[in-house]
């Protein structure tokens, strides 16, 4: 049983990792952009309200609904075909960017005002201050939360089974339908998820110690 099922689950877990990693990259870049432009010293009226609205909508609706909108409603609206994996990554990324933007915003706001002022008196412009002084400190402080978000995405990516992405959860459900051995198959699936999130947690701790 294990010999025949495990390779299939491991192969599918690569898709899970791919979707989660791409979603995390999307989420980090989006979260960084939204977090920066919504931080106390950089927020612009109008843009900040739009960001607040986006964050409220994403945080206030289930990720499953967001996935279905991206996969079924968006192609209809834009008249384009979105492949399942791309739709899944987009939904994960959009969801993650809203949560990460709040983490990054809080982390930027927590940098003492003296750091901005020191950069100003040394002649740094806004971009230089952000790039060389504020973000390195803010990202360092937010790193545990950012890597934790990757763990969350690994688990949340299981909903991609509903749009047909051949990731770990879909593979295990297909195998259970064929073999009728839910205990063993779902047990193995849970163990694979646990291994992936534990590795990420260990990596996070290593990273925290290093910086």
């Amino acid at each position, binding site marked *: 049983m294990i010999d025949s099922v495990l390779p299939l689950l491991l192969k599918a877990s690569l898709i899970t990792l791919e979707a989660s990693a791409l979603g995390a990259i999307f989420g980090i870049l989006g979260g960084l952009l939204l977090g920066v432009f919504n931080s106390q010293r950089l927020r612009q009226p109008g843009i900040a309200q739009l960001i607040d609205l986006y964050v409220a909508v994403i945080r206030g609706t289930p990720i499953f609904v967001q996935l279905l909108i991206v996969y079924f409603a968006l192609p209809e609206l834009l008249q384009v075909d979105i492949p399942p994996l791309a739709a899944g990554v987009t939904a994960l990324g959009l969801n993650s960017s809203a949560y990460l933007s709040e983490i990054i915003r809080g982390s930027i706001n927590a940098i003492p005002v003296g750091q901005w002022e020191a950069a*100003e*008196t*040394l*002649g740094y412009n806004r971009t*230089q201050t952000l790039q060389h002084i504020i973000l390195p400190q803010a990202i*360092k402080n937010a790193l545990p939360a950012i890597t934790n978000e990757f763990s969350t995405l690994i688990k949340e990516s299981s909903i991609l089974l509903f749009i047909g992405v051949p990731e770990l959860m879909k593979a295990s459900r297909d195998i259970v339908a064929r073999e009728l051995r839910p205990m063993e198959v779902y047990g193995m699936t849970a163990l694979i998820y646990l291994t992936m999130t534990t590795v990420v947690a260990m990596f996070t701790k290593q990273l925290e110690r290093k910086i």
Partner: protein
Amino acid sequence: MNLITGKNIYLKYQSNLALSDISFEIPKGRVTLFLGKSGSGKTSLLRCIANLNSSYAGEICFEEKPIKLLSRPDRVRAIGFVAQQFNLFPHMTVLQNCMQPQRLVLGRSFEEAEQKAQELLNALEIAHLGSRKPHELSGGQTQRVAIARALCMDAQALLLDEPTSALDPESTGKLRDILKLLLQKGVSIAISTHDMSFARSIFDRGYFMESGKIIEESGSRIQQYMQH
């Protein structure tokens, strides 16, 4: 000759008048003190001179050019500011703190920036701390790095806000020696302080401030105030 002059400076924080009709001069190569109790407006005035607060009315000039109109590189070459909390960048080493602003703002090469930083760290006797991070330094060492960082930009005038508030007596003595050294090198210095024993020890000329106004300039009242 005056390096920095201020004329009829007014500054409001919401409805509170923080500075009211302030006029002052900071001559070249001398120490100018701004004395007074907490809340008298000393720090607000220094922040205006450093262009950290530019919402004031009136005019502050460096060599007769309004500070607000100077380009960033010209402004840092004119005025260096050392805040009460020193504000070193905690994610950089001492050497990086001194080098990065030169490279980014003045466009110096790595070698030029490193040479300048080493020169100043040597002069302030902290060259051995180059590879340390700010959290590994004492208060006095942190302050000397902040002074070196400002002078790396070739600042002709150095503003120090309450420089002795975080220092022990030994470090205060060391600061006095450093200020004398900087004066010899032609740097003009402006200091806000309520530490009277420190003020007495470096007094050259100064202003006594109260409730956002200058009420005495280098006169008997300052001498009297410093006795207390």
